[in-house]
């Protein structure tokens, strides 16, 4: 199991008129080959910014303040824009949340695929076109030949997301980053896209980083999870461990607040709201909403400690509190 993407103490701030938004504040994790990784958190937890920074596409007023990013052991942050363009798409594919805004409405599906293919490979236009047709077939689009000539607005939401996935696959990446790939889709279409991502991963031997707020998707699609809260890692562990023995109160609270399809249970909401990242709470950023908070949580930032084999947790009290769910 080789290491693919390593993010080391990444800090990405946004310099806005209202103040400095510390969107990502010291995030580290490793994505391994063949071990689908989930980044989970609510809006504003920094999940998207983390991967955008890893690919070097944070735009102003955002700035990577510090941290190191490695892809297969190679450091990325000293690379020039020209070199980065070869890595983006060729090594790391990216599927964004909203296919309506990620596809260019003025170009046909074919144009957009050919553009990516010809950026990464020395193909003639015809060769690239044929490859595009193959990609559309791969992602399960019927009548791929005619669809190449369609404009995005002629396709349904599910189809557009398939095209976006095809485009992300065009460079034959080793790692696919899918940022909430199904949030905008209907449930039955979501099922299709999830199934597609799973089979493609196996077929193309491609690893996955899935960004989502849906614990259901995490349970189904990933083997390893990084739980983010307000720009910091709260917990990192295998998916099974996160669901069975959460060690961070936020992880446990998140699990207890999601309604379930297979049974009705009492929902325990997390009080309060997501903190403002210009003036984040002192100490542990979760303390104002945490049922277990003590004085130390207000005063000191909890370090990310090892709490078991390949398990990390950032909580002062993880040893004392028992968060196991009564099933």
């Amino acid at each position, binding site marked *: 199991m080789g290491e693919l993407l390593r993010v080391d103490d990444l800090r990405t701030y946004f310099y806005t008129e209202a103040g400095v938004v510390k969107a990502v504040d010291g995030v580290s994790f490793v994505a391994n080959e063949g071990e689908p990784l989930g980044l989970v958190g609510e809006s504003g937890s920094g999940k998207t910014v983390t991967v955008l920074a890893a690919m070097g596409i944070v735009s102003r007023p955002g700035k990577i303040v510090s941290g190191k990013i490695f892809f297969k052991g190679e450091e990325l942050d000293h690379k020039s824009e020209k070199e980065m363009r070869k890595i983006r798409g060729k090594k790391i594919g990216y599927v964004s949340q909203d296919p309506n805004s990620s596809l260019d409405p003025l170009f046909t599906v074919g144009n957009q695929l050919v553009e990516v293919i010809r950026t990464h490979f020395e193909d003639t236009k015809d060769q690239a076109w044929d490859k595009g047709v193959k990609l559309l077939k791969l992602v399960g689009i019927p009548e791929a030949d005619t669809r190449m000539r369609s404009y995005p607005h002629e396709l349904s939401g599910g189809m557009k997301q398939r095209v976006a996935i095809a485009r992300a696959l065009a460079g034959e990446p080793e790692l696919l980053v899918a940022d909430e790939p199904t949030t905008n889709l209907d449930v039955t279409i979501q*099922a299709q896209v999830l199934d597609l991502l799973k089979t493609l991963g196996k077929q193309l031997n491609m690893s996955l980083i899935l960004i989502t707020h849906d614990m259901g998707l995490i349970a189904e699609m990933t083997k390893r999870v990084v739980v983010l809260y307000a720009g910091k890692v709260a917990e990192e562990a295998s998916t099974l461990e996160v669901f069975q023995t959460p060690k961070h109160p936020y992880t446990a609270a998140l699990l207890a607040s*999601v*309604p379930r399809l297979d049974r009705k249970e009492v929902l325990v909401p997390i009080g309060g709201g997501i903190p403002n990242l210009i003036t984040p709470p002192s100490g542990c950023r979760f303390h104002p909403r945490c049922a277990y908070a003590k004085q130390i949580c207000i005063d000191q930032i909890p370090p990310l400690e090892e709490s078991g084999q390949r398990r990390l947790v950032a909580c002062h009290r993880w040893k004392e509190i028992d968060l196991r769910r009564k099933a």
Partner: protein
Amino acid sequence: MPEALVEVQDLVKYFPVYQRGVLLKKKVGDVHAIDNVSFKVGRGETLGLVGESGCGKTTTGKVMLDLETGDSGKVLFEGKEVHESLKKAPRSEKLALRRSMQMVFQNPYGSLDPRMTVFDIISEPFVIHKHIPHVEWKDRVYSLLKLVGLEEYHAERYPHEFSGGQRQRISIARALATEPKFIVADEPVSSLDVSIRAQILNLLEDLQKKTGISFLYISHDLSSVRQVSQFVAVMYLGKIFEYAPVNQVFDKPLNPYTMALLSAVPIPDPVRQTKRIILPGDVPSPVNPPSGCRFHPRCPYAAEVCKTDEPPLRELGSGHLVACHFAEKFA
């Protein structure tokens, strides 16, 4: 089921589709938003209305409150025809009917006037309905704020000062200001963050326990429907496919569409993964819905009869209504 508070009978609503010509618009078809839908909402109960986008759930809610006019069919509220009453009855009766039915909208960022304070927003129904004497407004607004879990000092603030979850609480307080018996809640949690959704779902349940109010809970999120509803209606392309007590729909669905819908929802438990039924294709256009059973092009069990004959909504077992030719097979 207890006595029905709201009853929908054979409701039909089409939206015409026009093609713009040089001078005139030409009608080219209809969007079949609601096609012959009947159901009841019991007193003090919640009916969950689920379906994918474009299946007609929101339109159904709007027609029930007479915010849209149905083409045919009836909506009865406590036995009275809503549309007729609102057209013909004397003003006092109209207002009384409006007062007893309210709506909570999906997007709390769009449903609250940014130039009004929370106090003005919640007390506006008092201005219209005059059911509360002016001297009591303040107390009433404060008690409503408390009921939805906000504080008195919030009354002087403007909507932009609140988070999404708090805004949704404000719009629930506004709906409650008229002391309604029935609220249509249209996707009230879908624009909120996960940790906040549970707060609002619990609030709806608490309110029902305290005030005996009935809800039509419209949502595409099946897990939240299970959480708050006693009965569930599943809609597909303007038709009700299944209608039963909540546990029957979730534990023993009889319509293949319901089954696929349920199996499509990821379960937040890595050990309990179920086999997924993957439907081919997209939801067909409601302008030209498929013949026979509208689900037949995507249904794994479709037979010849499904292409030609539309399955009626029939009862199978106690109070379990289902529209499928082969429902017995799944029982």
